[in-house]
């Protein structure tokens, strides 16, 4: 009865799916909250379910027509979670957080009184997030399990590996040895073995995981999250946090499938359809648990040029927070549900079952990559013809970075130029122009009906194209990316962001041929950019052209930039004393079709420090990852030259003498084309060149409706509009020095007696810090919000006027000649914003 109701309930939401696949629920014992973390069928057909509450239940006759009548017996309790189950000789094997155990029932009462510890040789800290997931067995008898990373404040989504083998796939050999298999995982909640014997690991979207991936694991390979690399042989002991940077010299194995974010956000395990038709036509395919969206997906893998990749489709929606899937002896798919603390579609716990009704849905049975497109096979012959306009395709890739997930990047609508149906009407050849390796292709088939009037049940497929058939070049879908904005604004206090906001602000002297865009390697010719409008990269795809000049921006301190080059591209940065630093891609390439097609064979590059005459003073060929990759470059400048040059956080050049006292204009060299820069920034060593005795902020007169809070030597202005009186008069020659910071959208100013220097943002939300209102605007977003920046306002007598010079961290950013009486006091700090705040601290006036 209840089952029938459930079937009806499900059928209301998704009528089409439930026509082919029904969902029913088991009834756990009264009061038991069944938070399922592991499932296994025992040789006698009994289902064992492990729960996050550390219990193992035996469920009799799990294929019973009415699952609500199935009897539950508690087999064990007191375990610490059970997120993976298997069996040996009829005994349940359970993967607890702390150990892998065998449950033995010696007296035959179905209660396992003996919990045998089979293995516990892996590290565990006190972090709450160190789950262990498993537990499939391969043909050789190895049991596989994965170890979650720790999540620790303040960047609490940012996984750390604080004990050996956290973030690794592990296995227990038949000899009883625990062995690490492969690093690079984050929250790998699903481990499985597919029909081909591949070890499958699913991971969860987060830092370094652009979306939720399905990996076909290569033992020893690095799978994408760097935290676990610290336990690889030869990794420096001192480098305990590899998760903070792109690892050097480590090749990354791309996932076989990137599951689209709208389909999966918390992927569970996979089950292989070995039912030989009992579950429908999907022999050997993978059924994937998805917790957040409460659905089951279907996936298929293929090997092309030795690279595993494949297709994925939604299969059955609205099934609840499914974390575990397993096929029953009679070929039904049992679902283990849990969402506690993780969040997911209701129901959030319990045990359910998907049964095939026996009617074959119209589905894409296979979607296989072929040269120039895809071959799609349907489960039923297509009724009527298919016009090419019924097939649409788009593709995208991702950022590989330490932020939480990645929005889809570089979207393209693809041109489908052919869609041909085979004679048996079951195969569709789709041909698409401009497919590129290293992208996810989403194809949608509209208005397609299978024989018998069955509409195509799931019209969309996502195919992860790591490699194109016929071409050996494999590219990762998730590409190394410059640091995202959010991290910089929160953590990088003291930096001046020279190319943020509007880089064509007059603060930067605009020079052709520099322009802004998004960049990718031209898929045919890796020596060219494929650019689209955007704000990712300052591009000079020359040849020739002028330098992009940022006046006075060389000073003792650290200069940093992200560099991105195509094959044979080069980028240059000026150095004090007329020298230059030049980075060149020197990758070995393969030229085809008379040179029109250029593909990378082996990445290589060179960095050189040259003096004014062009003589090379130092060079390095280390740390270059190749064309189309982001490289973070840092130069430590001192008055006597260069202290160190780092690429990807690794020092590659040290100690070079240069004339020029560490100062000069910063030039991005235009003659070395093509080149791309992003996020050029400066951290001066002496950000406060002028300062006097800090003034007291207490007791000043407040005008207007602004809220004023004094906290030591700092004053915060928030809410309303108004100002705080700081000093009565300003001398004709003086320097006002202070620190300031602001919240986004906050508008603040220092009023010198009529002339205002702006802090914070403009009414429209753009950066304005450093601007002299009405005279000289700075829109370059030099200062990250919320971080303290040193500023100074220098007044110099100039006939009957005053020259006003504004510096941020010592860098002159604005100047104007204004009437003397507009800068002679009183000195006030003001603010106008309903929500934000502006702060001023350590104010001094030096005559």
């Amino acid at each position: 009865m209840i089952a029938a109701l459930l079937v009806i309930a499900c059928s209301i939401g998704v009528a089409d799916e439930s026509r082919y696949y029904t969902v029913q629920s088991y009834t756990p014992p009264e009061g038991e909250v069944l938070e399922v973390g592991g499932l296994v069928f025992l040789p006698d057909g009994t289902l064992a379910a492990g729960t996050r509450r550390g219990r193992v239940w035996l469920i009799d006759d799990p294929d019973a027509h009415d699952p609500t009548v199935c009897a539950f017996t508690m087999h064990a309790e007191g375990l610490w979670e059970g997120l993976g189950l298997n069996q040996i000789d009829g005994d349940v094997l359970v993967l607890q957080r702390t150990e892998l155990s065998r449950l033995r029932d010696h007296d035959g009462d179905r209660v396992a009184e003996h919990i045998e510890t089979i293995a516990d040789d892996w590290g565990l800290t006190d972090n709450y997030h160190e789950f262990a997931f498993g537990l499939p067995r391969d043909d050789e008898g190895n049991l596989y399990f994965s170890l979650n990373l720790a999540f620790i404040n303040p960047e609490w989504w940012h996984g750390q590996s604080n004990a050996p083998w956290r973030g690794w796939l592990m296995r227990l050999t038949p000899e009883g040895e625990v062995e690490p298999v492969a690093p690079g995982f984050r929250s790998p909640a699903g481990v499985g073995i597919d029909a081909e014997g591949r070890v499958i690991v699913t991971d969860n979207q987060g830092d370094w995981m652009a979306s939720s991936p399905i990996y076909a694991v290569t033992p020893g390979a690095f799978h994408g999250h760097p935290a676990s690399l610290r336990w690889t042989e030869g990794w420096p002991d001192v480098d305990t946090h590899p998760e903070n940077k792109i690892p050097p010299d480590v090749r990354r194995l791309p996932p076989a499938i990137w599951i689209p974010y709208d389909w999966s956000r918390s992927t569970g395990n996979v089950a292989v359809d070995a039912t030989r038709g009992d579950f429908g036509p999907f022999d050997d395919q993978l059924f994937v648990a998805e917790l957040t969206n409460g659905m089951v997906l279907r996936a298929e893998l293929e090997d092309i040029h030795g690279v595993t990749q494949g297709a994925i489709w939604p299969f059955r929606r609205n099934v609840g927070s499914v974390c575990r899937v397993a096929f029953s002896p009679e070929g039904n798919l049992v679902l283990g549900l849990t969402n506690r603390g993780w969040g997911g579609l209701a129901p959030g716990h319990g045990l359910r079952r998907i049964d095939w009704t026996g009617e074959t849905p119209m589905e894409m049975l296979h979607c296989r990559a072929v040269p120039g497109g895809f071959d799609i096979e349907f489960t039923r012959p297509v009724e009527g013809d298919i016009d090419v306009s019924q097939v649409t395709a788009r593709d995208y890739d991702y950022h590989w970075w330490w932020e939480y997930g990645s929005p889809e990047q570089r979207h393209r609508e693809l041109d489908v130029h052919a869609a041909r149906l085979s004679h048996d009407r079951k195969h569709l050849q789709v041909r698409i122009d401009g497919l590129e390796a290293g992208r996810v292709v989403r194809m949608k088939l509209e208005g397609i009906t299978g024989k018998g009037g069955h509409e195509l049940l799931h019209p969309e497929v996502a195919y992860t194209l790591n490699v194109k058939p016929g071409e050996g070049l494999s590219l990762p879908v998730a590409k190394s990316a410059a640091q995202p904005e959010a991290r910089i604004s929160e953590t990088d206090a003291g930096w001046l962001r020279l190319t943020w906001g509007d880089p064509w602000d007059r603060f930067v002297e605009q020079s052709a041929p520099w322009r802004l865009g998004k960049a990718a390697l031209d898929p045919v010719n890796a020596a060219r950019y494929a650019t689209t409008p955007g704000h990712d990269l300052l591009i000079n795809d020359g040849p020739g052209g002028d330098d992009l000049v940022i006046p006075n921006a060389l000073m003792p301190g650290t200069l940093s930039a992200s560099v991105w080059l195509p094959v044979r591209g080069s980028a240059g940065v000026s150095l004090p004393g007329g020298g230059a630093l030049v980075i060149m891609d020197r990758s070995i390439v393969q030229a085809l079709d008379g040179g029109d097609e250029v593909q990378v064979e082996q990445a290589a590059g060179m960095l050189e420090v040259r003096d004014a005459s062009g003589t090379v003073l130092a060079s390095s060929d280390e740390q270059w990852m190749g064309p189309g990759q982001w490289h973070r470059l840092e130069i430590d400048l001192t008055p006597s030259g260069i202290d160190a040059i780092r690429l990807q956080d690794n020092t590659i050049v040290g100690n070079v003498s240069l004339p020029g006292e560490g100062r000069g204009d910063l030039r991005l060299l235009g003659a070395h084309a093509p080149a791309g820069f992003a996020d050029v920034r400066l951290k001066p060593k002496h950000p406060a060149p002028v300062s006097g005795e800090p003034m007291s902020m207490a007791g000043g007169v407040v005008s207007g409706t602004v809220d004023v809070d004094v906290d030591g030597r700092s004053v915060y202005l928030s809410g309303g509009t108004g100002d705080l009186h700081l000093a009565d008069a300003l001398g004709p020659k003086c320097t006002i020095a202070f620190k300031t910071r602001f919240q986004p959208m906050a508008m603040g100013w220092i009023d010198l007696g009529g002339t205002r220097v702006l802090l914070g943002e403009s009414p429209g939300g753009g950066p304005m810090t450093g601007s002299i209102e009405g005279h000289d605007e700075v829109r370059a977003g030099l200062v990250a919000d919320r971080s303290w920046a040193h500023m100074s306002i220098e007044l110099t007598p100039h006939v009957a006027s005053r020259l006003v010079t504004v510096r941020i961290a010592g860098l002159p950013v604005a100047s104007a000649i204004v009437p003397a009486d507009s800068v002679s006091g009183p000195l006030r700090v003001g603010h106008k914003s309903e929500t934000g705040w502006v702060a001023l601290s350590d104010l001094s006036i030096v005559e």
Partner: protein
Amino acid sequence: MSSHEPKTTQEKIRDIGICLFCLFIVVPLVSFIIIYTTWSMTIPDHSGPNYSPPSLEQSAHVATATASPASGHMIYMAQCASCHGDSGDGKGTRVLDRPARSFKAGGFSFGDTQEAIARVVRSGIPGTPMPGFARTLSPAQIKAVVSHVQSLGPERVQVDEADAVLTVEDKPVVVRGKLPEHYIGMGEIPRGLVAGNPDGLSFVYRGDDVRLLGTRQGAFVRRTDWDGRGGTALDLQGRLIHLVPDVPVFEHDGRPIQAKLAGTDVGGRRAAIHYKVGSTDITEEAGAVTMGPLAGYQRRMQISGGGDVLLRMPAWRTGGLERIGPAGAWTWWQEPAFDGRMHFVGVRGAQPLQCGGLQLPRRGTVEIRVFPDSPIEEAAKAGIPVKQAVST
């Protein structure tokens, strides 16, 4: 009231409150545990430092006052609805390059606990349009809006407190989990075992080296990790009656050697712990025991396949154990406790050595009895089930 950094007086008060709390509650409490490590039957359980920091209460009061559902809804409509939609369906008016979360479906990337959602509200999700509100909303406002967000989603699994309290009835129970801090400053113990017996005693072992850390009496264990994402420590509910000093336990060839857990058994009258020390297999059972006027506990170790293994009696390492001589098959010592009183420790079946260890036999049974410095009448008064205990 705008809420920016300097306006965090409440936070400061709260922080001070927490410090005071640590100073006046946590420290004395921990000291209390340490001081009364013996089976101190005369000490009433409910005694202890009696301090309630007013500032903590005050800040809690403020938080409660502002965290009404109405204000949560108002904050939500002002700060969240434009992206997440008025009803939380993720369909706000603002166009984003990644869709905003639908709260109705109940999916939360970082978890759906109050703490997890509050963290997202405070810090935002970098790489997405979700901003942080740490500086725009006060802690109380964040709490209110999180409650509202939770109310928009499906009903959450609530742990029934009674479910999470595990009891030992007529059969022993072994529980695996993280242990709370046992020795001051040593932090939580990630791998732990607690073996509870029907006689009312429970034995707390570290999992990594199967070392007995302490013996407790009374209620058993409450699982705190059945809420949120889990991973929190067991709440050991019994009273600590013997804290075993933290020194390496086993030696082999003159070097410390770690025991390795081989399993647990609850088929018998008492929980059994199986472990290996090198090639030596040991099965250990522990439980209550009385002897004449004394009440205490006994560890019985069944040894097989043995090598040259030395068991360190922990206090011997510090030189504090005083041998009071053999009595029949037993050899007796006095072990000074933290409060200056003396435990009686007896050993049978192993050869005591001058160097401060017991030479374990290759095969056979070793018994170790520990009697805190208390007469049996006091044990009875304190509710210790002396009748069920093994008598000699």
